[in-house]
């Protein structure tokens, strides 16, 4: 049975839907209300609060920690300044992605790493004679994601941190009523937002401070379901959904490189050796087989299919996570890729998906055919390949 996060006394009281799912061995709220549109709109209009404790969290310290992380990650961690954060992934020898997460630098030799999968054993394998200590703090630290246009205002009310100048992907220490915590301007919504990290014993204090400060700003608890919609709009991929860790893949076809996942921008190739460097250099030179793209599914096409049956158009209300085939524009029996997740965007009024597609069809603007299920029958509608980032507001990066 999954266990409860330290926030459970509060989150369970607020959950009106008893809709919990398992996330990395913890209970996580999938939604807090029967109708969860409000959770979604909180992210985009006011502020949504998500319990992100189940993320795997590691403290990496020691004299060699900077070098160690630089060798492990595709990104050059030695460039990371004090209090800076970065998003990156890590690979195996074959340049295939194992997991992705954020690395934050809290001290000279003090790094904080988040991951989707348990990573302690993988990281530990490379310590050997290096002066590096890895501490799994997953069960001793907890996290809240406060995301949305009003998140800054809420935080300013409950702590002393200077948030006006805190830039996107930077972190700061903060003090509130009787406890310390860390703030990182990071998130999984593609919006203005922060993630708050605190020791378990101060979990409820942190929660109560944020919650009461948020009351004037229409703060809402948000579950995984709403989070899934916003992360797809933001074009953020997910381990286990949009790709599989190469440590879990059974056959090479199930593995992906950073380039194939659209994470080429996180790779710093020309530097001291790092895990996967050789293979990634080769792939950079020879090109990748697959690409991760956004798919904008033609709405009038879908509407027409329903109209033929005498029905109004229908889409699922939340995000979906399963494989849907994508076919060639002309040769309709030729599969050229597959969507891994998608959603109706309540804000953009678009039917969107994230897809893995053969490289030659990955250019934005390419027309493809997308499979839809209309009243128990498989049909094709046209769709356009685009960059996966469907929604990217200025406020995400703005400083005051």
């Amino acid at each position, binding site marked *: 049975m999954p266990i409860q996060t330290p926030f459970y006394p509060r989150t369970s009281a607020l959950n009106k839907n008893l809709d919990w799912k398992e996330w990395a061995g913890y209970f996580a709220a999938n939604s807090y209300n029967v109708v969860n549109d409000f959770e979604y709109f909180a992210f985009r209009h006011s502020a949504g609060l998500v319990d992100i404790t189940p993320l795997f969290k590691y403290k990496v310290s020691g004299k060699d920690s900077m070098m160690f992380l630089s060798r492990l990650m595709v990104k050059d961690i030695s460039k990371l300044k004090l209090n800076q954060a970065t998003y990156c992934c890590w690979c195996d020898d074959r340049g295939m992605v194992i997991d992705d997460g954020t690395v934050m630098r809290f001290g000279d030799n003090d790094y904080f790493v988040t991951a989707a999968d348990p990573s302690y054993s993988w990281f530990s*394998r*490379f310590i050997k004679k290096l002066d590096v200590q890895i501490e799994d703090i997953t069960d001793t630290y907890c996290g809240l994601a406060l995301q949305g246009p009003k998140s800054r205002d809420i935080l300013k009310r409950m702590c002393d941190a200077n948030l006006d100048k805190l830039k996107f992907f930077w972190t700061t220490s903060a003090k509130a009523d009787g406890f310390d915590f860390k703030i990182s301007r990071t998130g999984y919504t593609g919006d203005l937002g922060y993630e708050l990290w605190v020791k378990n014993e101060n979990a409820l204090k942190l929660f109560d401070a944020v919650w009461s400060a948020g009351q004037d700003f229409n703060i809402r608890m948000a579950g995984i379901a709403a989070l899934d919609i916003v992360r797809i709009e933001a074009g953020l991929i997910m381990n286990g959904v949009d790709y599989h860790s190469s440590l879990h893949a059974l056959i090479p076809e199930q593995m992906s490189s950073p380039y194939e996942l659209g994470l080429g921008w996180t790779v710093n190739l020309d530097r001291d*050796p790092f895990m996967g460097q*050789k293979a990634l250099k080769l792939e950079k030179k020879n090109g990748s087989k697959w690409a991760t793209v956004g798919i904008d599914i033609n709405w009038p096409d879908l509407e027409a299919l329903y109209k033929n049956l005498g029905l109004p158009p229908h889409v699922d209300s939340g995000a979906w996570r399963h494989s849907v085939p994508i076919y060639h524009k002309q040769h309709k029996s030729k599969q050229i890729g597959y969507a891994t997740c998608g959603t109706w965007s309540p804000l953009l009024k678009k039917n969107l998906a994230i897809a893995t597609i053969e490289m030659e069809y990955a250019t934005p603007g390419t027309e493809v055919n997308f499979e839809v299920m209309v009243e128990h029958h498989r049909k094709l509608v046209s769709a356009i390949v685009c960059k996966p980032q469907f929604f990217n507001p200025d406020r995400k990066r703005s400083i005051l």
Partner: protein
Amino acid sequence: MSKFDVIVIGGGHNGLTTASILAKKGKKVLVVEKRNILGGIAAGEEFHPGYSTTGLLHDTSGVRSQVVKDLQLEKHGLDIKSNRANVTLLSKDGKSVSIQSDVNATVEAISEFSEKDAQAYSAYQEFLKKISKVINDLMENPPPNIDVENLTMGSLVVLAKKGMMLKGLGNKTMMELLKIAPMCVADFLNEKFETEFLKAGLAAPALYGSYAGPWSAYSTINLLLWESASKNHVIGGPQALIAALQKAAIQAGVEIRTGAEVEKILLDNEGKVEGVKLSGGEAIYASKVAASCTPKETFLNLFDNFQLEYELDYWIDKIRSRGTTAKVNLAINKTVELNGRITEFARTGNSFDEMEKAFDPVKYKQVTNAPYLDIHIPTHSNPSLAPEGHSVVSVLVHQIPYDFKKGWSVDAKKQLGEHVLKELEVYSPGFSKAVVGIEILSPTDFEERYSLTEGHIYHGEHFVDQLVTRPIPSCSRYKTPVSGLYLCGSGSHPGGGITCAPGSMAAIEIIK
């Protein structure tokens, strides 16, 4: 800053073999040896004033005739006989039997206590003769170049089968081989023989350097390999081989530096070998490096973290090389007889149960009170190794764990020495009183003195998955995934023991 074609790490028998062959082919070769003497575990050493051994190991039966020929070692003073040396198997009840290269003589000797065993021995030798061709073929050539990417288990079996058929093995012998290969040596010999000490003595070589007792499955393979490969006998022991190899090397133009310990193997920007750095800081450059030290020493100690591909690092780390051998060198003030016989080589063992009981404690990192011994008395053939009328008794004690729980303190070693003396006393009453000097080397001493990882005398256990694709598949043909780096020691095919085979086959690969 002189530049060499090849730097060979380690001046043992394999390192010298590789160096000499390369130099003869016109390469500019440097051998760097950590110790102040050449020879590694084949080096003869004075262990007590006036008393010397002929090497840490003493079995020279596996020395490859081809190497002797190629390097003209006989011209350089090597006296090698194409017969195995006689070995006396000892029983605690005073019985003994001499296993000789002459089968008929051995059969006659066995028939003195068991007619059944005498006949069985003769049949056993016939069987060994039949299969030795196939086995030698495997051991005397580099491992088959198998396209690993497209390999299937089935195709492997088919291949192996075709191979065996071609070698003229009948279907029946082949099926018998398949039946016995996975067996433990105890089951295998129990099917044939009845006399306990004979079985135990015949089985002993299967267990040398392995983490196994006679009841451990697959030990039969090791026995068959040893029986098939053991054909020769170097007069003067391993050190005589080293002396000849050294002369051959020098004549071929090999440069030799002793007292030169390699700290790192140097790589250039593209990850190619460019030389070695000595522990003093001196860098020596060469486009190729051949390492005769253990694979684990080579990859895990001579490179920095992350320098190697993870996959390589991972598999090297998984090599099993749990040392199970210790050495006791004894200076004796008289001529030594064992069970009333003068013999240069002898083995104890008595019974499978006793041997198994000697192995049992190893599993729990403990040391047996009753070890079985592999004895060499070199002074019988070379009295100059000790003062006149005195003897050197050099004993390899198997099933002594490297990772002894209590640690290999001076006291622990002393205790081991006492156990060995107690055993010897059984076969040679009054032995202990004749001891004038003793040197006890634990597996940790092996590691310290000879850089043998975990004190393993064969650079890695001889076990099915670590044979042929030795030490790991990607390094199994002497070449390694590190461009310019080759392996040429016992950690490579066909394995450990004083054979010079890995050294010579590696040299051929390097020239390619």
